[in-house]
């Protein structure tokens, strides 16, 4: 677990997201930075929101639902988390 308030670079955030997803997506689903979150993970919308909740705890940020709605790919998600962590200082 990263120290609270530390700033991970975006690449590391993305790698962590992909690692955390690996145990959750159906067998055979390959997750990359360009994977579409809604259509490419094989998870339903509530499972995605629950996963995002785990990311919030991992990175100690809150990702408001309107921000989630703007995110399409894993890369977008890591960018959103990176920005929220920087904004939180």
């Amino acid at each position: 677990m990263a120290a609270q308030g530390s700033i991970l670079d975006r690449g590391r955030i993305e790698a962590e997201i992909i690692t955390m997803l690996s145990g959750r997506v159906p067998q055979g689903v390959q997750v990359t930075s360009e994977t579409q979150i809604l259509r490419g993970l094989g998870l339903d919308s509530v499972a995605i929101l629950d996963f995002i909740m785990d990311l919030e705890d991992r990175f100690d940020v809150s990702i408001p639902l309107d921000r989630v709605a703007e995110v399409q790919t894993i890369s977008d998600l890591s960018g959103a988390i990176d920005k929220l962590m920087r904004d939180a200082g």
Partner: protein
Amino acid sequence: MSLFAKFDPIRAGIESLFGSARNPFDVRFDKVLSPTEALLGGRRVLLLGTNNYLGLTFDPACVEASMRALEEAGTGTTGSRIANGTYSDHALLERRIAEFFGKRSAMIFSTGYQANLGLISTLAGRGDHLLIDADSHASIYDASKLSTAEVIRFRHNDPEDLAHRLRRLKHRPGNRIIVTEGIFSMLGDTAPLREIAAVKREMGASLIVDEAHSLGILGKHGRGLAEAVGVEADVDFVVGTFSKSLGAVGGFAASDLPDFDLLRIVCRPYMFTASLPPAVIGSVMAALRRLSTDQSLTTRAVSNSRRLYTALAQSGFTVGPEPNPIVAVKMPSPASAALFWNRLIDEGVYVNLALPPATPGSMSLIRSSVSSAHTEVQIDRAVSIMSAVGRELGVIAAR
């Protein structure tokens, strides 16, 4: 590409799950005979999935009040509350709801869905923070979408998690608004409202509690979970519906806050829809009187719920965490849930089928709702049929 092509995966999912068997979207009752029985496909079925907790849909006093209002005031108001759609009885029902909850004021909406949609989306404005339970009803999620506030989910029934997420907002301006429910609609579990109220007080937030499924069931006077756990004074806004315990349609919000009635001139889902027809207002007022004067309605609903919950658990089903009028049974998969649901109807029991993503934790559920109008014989018959079907499909062990 067709306008509807985006729904192809949903259609394909339903087709693959049900094939040529009946599915919940196609159920048409030929005739509803009573709060507990209907004709479906020409056969009599026991109704065990209608949220008709107090069994008032055919109550003579409610029917008579509704018919009187229909004859005296017509079939509909043909207008919104801010135009021609406020009759003296709309205002009277609002006073009755406020009195029932011991609140200063109440507003009625055309559905319970619109009550949440209107109240939450209007209160939570730009720069505010809306904290909703992860297992919230769709109306709360849709209200969140309509709101311009930042919306944050907290872990289901976890006051610590709520407090943690509120602490993250420490240096951010804006109001904090917490939303939870008395009884949750899928598993029938109650919120840890005493603890959530303590978090609310500590963090200086406002608290909205949706008592849709707990009205008429919890609390000495049937006012819901907040009454049952003694935190009504901490609840800034109580929301509810007329379409469950009160046997009609419509919703309400009530509050002690002096400016609450300002919502009447800014809350679009209240302002820009037709108001409830007089017949509905009439039956709801009668149902409120029945609830206030006949405690046996609540007592029977609660004892029937316990009877069903305990018997299903004893049969080997995995049931929800608490014996409330919503009794959910966990199924191994969506396919087995769909088959189970179909077999129950074949055997004369109608329940609800609840599948992901409408369920918490992607669970597949057979969801029953119990009424005070059910007899013990009916409950026992439902248990017997559910257990037989459960054994037949391998959901529970053979005897």
